[in-house]
């Protein structure tokens, strides 16, 4: 079995409880970071670990922290992105359910590193039970002095607040998340300015995904070198891949970054269900462009997938078999994005809604010549032209489907 960083203890009973957690080396990383290391050292370590963001964009966490200006007089904030809205994505939920203290450790260490005294966890509204579990974990950590004033006598203070979302996918986008956290409508903000300089309440802010932060404690305990070696030189560590769709064993698999997609599906997830043939894979959550069956001999890491015109995104692998209608896939995708567009900018709001209307019409058997071209035109008018990346997230998979499965789509029109 490969080495696990995040899910090693998932099967231990009551691991979410602090006393159990403490028996397994719990809070040692916080102790080490706060009492033996200084923020500069931690930042160096985080950078050296080449930990790429697990929320979707794959930006190196250490570099992001380094952007936060250290000499201002404004408070700084940490926002943990636990919105987990990307269809197919289930990893954060496992981490928070089974290993909430690991996340808390990650938050404490990164906040200490950046000089932050207030952190927010923005959690998907539907995750009510998980929010309660986190709440309990935070309470426990407070009682034991891992949170609050003067943590472990280090002089460092940290408070964590949980904020539940209200069911909008867009609130997972970091700037929309900030707006929502401020109590406003979750509309994305213009960038620049970037949150690192002007974020929550106009103050410098770090936003990281749950999984990203949950990797920090191990990096502190075992070192960047070890972490890097788990994965690839410039994309270190493991990832929790959530495999769903027509495989024998759907579920989560924590594997090194750089694991082959083919292995993931056929070796770890048990291959195709009912012996069906593989048709295509969406490799990194619904926003990632589709890969055809003959394109899956590929390593799962940010750069490789990018080169293959797709992306690793949130590491949610959606497997489609030969029986799956690509038109259905397209319908599901367009319905989702049309509904979840915040409505702020023209190409995304109207473009997605038209794609949806055309695709639904085709599914009703009322397709017309030129429909596919119109879908492609609408989608291309989004790529790189919208206010926030949701436009791209919607357009890229659609364009990839049109490109790779055009023949099949055309047959639905005839």
């Amino acid at each position, binding site marked *: 079995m490969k080495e696990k960083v995040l899910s090693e203890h998932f099967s231990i009973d009551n691991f979410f409880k602090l006393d159990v957690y403490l028996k397994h080396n719990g809070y040692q990383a916080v102790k080490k970071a706060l009492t033996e290391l200084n923020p500069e050292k931690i930042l160096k370590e985080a950078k050296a670990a080449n930990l790429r963001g697990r929320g979707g964009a794959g930006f190196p966490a250490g570099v992001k922290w380094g952007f936060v200006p250290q000499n201002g007089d404004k408070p700084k904030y940490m926002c943990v992105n636990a919105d987990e809205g990307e269809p197919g994505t289930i990893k954060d939920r496992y981490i928070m359910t089974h290993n909430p203290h690991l996340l808390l450790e990650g938050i404490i260490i990164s906040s200490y590193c950046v000089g932050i005294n207030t952190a927010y966890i923005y959690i998907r509204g539907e995750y009510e039970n998980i929010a309660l579990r986190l709440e309990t974990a935070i309470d426990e950590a407070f009682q034991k002095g891992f949170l609050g004033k003067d943590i472990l006598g280090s002089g460092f203070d940290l408070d964590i607040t949980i904020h539940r979302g209200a069911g909008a996918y867009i609130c997972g986008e970091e700037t929309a998340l900030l707006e929502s956290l401020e109590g406003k409508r979750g509309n994305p903000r213009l960038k620049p300015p970037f949150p690192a300089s002007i974020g929550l309440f106009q103050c410098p802010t770090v936003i990281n995904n749950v999984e990203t932060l949950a990797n920090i404690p191990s990096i502190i305990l075992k070192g960047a070198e070890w972490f890097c070696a788990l994965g690839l030189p410039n994309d270190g560590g493991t990832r929790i891949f959530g495999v769903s769709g027509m495989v024998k064993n759907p579920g989560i698999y924590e594997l090194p970054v750089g694991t082959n997609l083919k292995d993931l599906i056929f070796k770890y997830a048990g291959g195709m269900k009912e012996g069906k043939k593989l048709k295509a894979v969406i490799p990194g959550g619904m926003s990632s462009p589709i890969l055809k069956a003959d394109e899956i001999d590929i390593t799962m890491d940010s750069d490789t997938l990018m080169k293959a015109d797709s992306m690793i995104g949130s590491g949610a692998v959606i497997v489609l078999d030969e029986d799956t209608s690509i038109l259905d896939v397209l319908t599901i995708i367009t319905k989702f994005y049309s509904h979840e567009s915040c409505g*702020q900018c023209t190409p995304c*709001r109207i473009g997605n809604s038209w794609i949806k209307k055309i695709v639904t019409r085709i599914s009703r058997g009322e397709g017309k010549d030129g429909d596919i071209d119109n879908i492609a035109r609408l989608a291309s008018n989004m790529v790189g032209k919208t206010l926030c990346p949701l436009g791209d997230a919607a357009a890229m998979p659609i364009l990839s489907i049109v490109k790779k499965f055009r023949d099949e789509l055309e047959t639905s029109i005839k």
Partner: protein
Amino acid sequence: MKVIIDGKTIEAEENKTILELARENGIYIPSLCDHPGLAPFSGCRLCLVQIKGKKGYSPSCSIYIEDGMEVKTSTQQLRKLRKNILELILTEHPNACLMCAEKKECDEYKATIRKVGEVTGCVLCPNNGDCELQEIVEEIGVDIVDFPSYYRDLEVKRDDPFFDRNYNLCILCGRCVRICHEVRGCSTLSFVKRGPETVVSTSMDQRLIDSNCQFCGACMDVCPTGALIEKGRKYESLADDKTEMLCPLCSVGCRLEVNLGEGRLLNTRPAADGPANHGQACVKGRFLIKDLVYIEKRIEKPLIRREKKLEEVGWDEALDWVAGKLKKYKGKETAVIRSAQVSCEDGYVLRKFADEVLKTGNISSEPAFSSYRELAQKLGFMPALNYKIEEISSAETIFLLSSNISVSHPIVWLEIVKAVKNGARLIAAGPMELQFDRFVSLQLRIEPGTENILLGSLQKILTGGESFKAAKESKVAENALREAAEILKSSKSPAFIFGSESIQGPVGMEVLTALWNIALLSKGRLYHLGLESNSRGIFELDRSFNKKSRQTGLIIQDIIDNKVKALYLAGSRIELPKKARPEFLIIQDSYVSKNTEIADAVLPAAVSAEAEGVFVNMEGRVQKSGKVLEPPGKTKPDWWITSQAAKRMGAEAFDYKKPSSIIKEIRNKLPGFANVTYPALEKSKEIFIKEETPQKGKLFTQKIISLPEGNNKRYPFRLVLFYNLDFYRNLSLSEAVRGFRIFRNSQWIHICLEDADKLKLKNGDSIEVLSPHGKTKVIVRITKTVSPGIVAASPEYPIFNNTASSNVLKVMIKRGK
């Protein structure tokens, strides 16, 4: 820095967006969501450009220029892209007419067919011909939309006064949402829902009137489409002429753009380059000016009373008759009460008439400034009054002594909002809570009438003393007072802004003295809000006459005592109490009122849109208001009427042909007006009353006056008086205009929920308020701005405005029948 746009090198200053720079240099980039004065939004995506070295496309409305930047605004790809995007926008907006081949010919008929309920095409839209979307379609040239148009089929919202909202025409540019939030500080509007259902609405989709809307109309003025439509403009013709005038309704002096069509005033909108208002106005200037002109209550012919009845006559007859009657009275027996909403020319002639023709000292003084005159006497010079409204937004600290400012002087309030958004601290002192208390950083809520105690204590703290009278009598906590002092000490030149309410009456002078002292100690500026559109002007004019003018209340007392027998009432809102009916009453005014019913002569005056004239706003800014319309019927400007009366009484120096000759006379008499000539006013917006060179100020001892206890048992409530200024001449705006009355009624008495519950009163109930001065009928308005035991009202009421000697009265409340 240098920026290259489409190959053209442009020398530019930083802190500009590409779009701004392009506009300044006559380079057209289509844009729909951008609007000057609003933060970049970048939603419509029409303004995308290509920047060298940057991948893809960038919205020019939110990217700031950098040295050496190379921008392309009109490549083949961009043009195609814009066409595509505009096409998308048009699928959400009724578009048949926008792309119709017959649209030119159709134009001729549009004035008639657009009078329908549902707008499904431009020909049916009241915005037709004045629409940014139409312009952009022309410019980009869309002739076919590949997707069928999608009609949202939303119900048109018509339940609010002044304007309707038809979101079927909305293109979601967000300008309305942003101006309401960013500039007006109201945040009434927001986007709601998402995806294709996204729409602009209010909290819980309530009516605007229930959502804190101030009906400023700013949202409507920035809307690029016909989604927000002025009710009063809907069925009017298209504008064929545009001109400008000043709003006559408060001392801010907003410049208004006037749309005229076939000689009719269609509507007024704030002028973008108005020096005091910078493209903003309030509900009154935006929506009510037209009513002032066309309301049925206008008097259009001179009337004289013969055999108990008012009879229409010609000017000669009316004026000779009036002159003949007036001549019979001794100087002392006559009086002139004059409004401060008339121009300097009008006000000057009235004053001269009283002085030189009637030879009476009974001319009403300008109440807003009486305390200033006293302070000037103490000081030996007139303290500076000329401070610019626009400079408030850069203040670090604002000390506000006027809880009603967002209603009485909305434009000043906007500057305060801007200051707070820039990080200023707002200290609000007064007996009422501000309507927009969310902008306040320190609230000093005091007992009514104890402003002078509060300020006296503050002064003591600032000079290092210990005094906590305030804590006891004003009920302001000592630490709050100390905090206020700390804030004032730590900021550069704080702005002290106060309304006339606080410096009038017996303690007013003490309040002003204290303000003077505190401003001196903290190196601050004193912003006197003034009252009416020309209160500052009238005040300045009166300084050219040797005789002092008198308080209106005293003149009225003289009428009651039968000392004054003939009254010349010009444009004044005063309602004469029953016992104060003079033997001979002349009314020079524009509307039918209770006073005109009992008058002996009514001389119909033009309203401000119908006469040229010079006004001085609260900043000391001198502005000329243009003549926009011909006066109806036989109405004439005030200066003409008064000088004709004077001439017929044998006076010689009243031979004015036009208002500019009056200004010339004023200029020669009064050094304050030295710069004021008509040509100069037409050329420059920056002409101010010339002030005396300020001398070194000194601190004065301030007397701390506590209000008399009074009979608390009989009069358990304290009534706080504040100004709404909702009147024009003798017309009450809320009485005259129904839409306005729903929004704000001068008859409202503000009461807190707790007291209303105790008295079993609900909103809209008619009740009676009794004070030692009399009683009046009012309407219950429950608000959060007053606390238990306190009620508040605007003193346009007879019992309040004639005898109000203080801004607080003890009253009793009785349920009406």
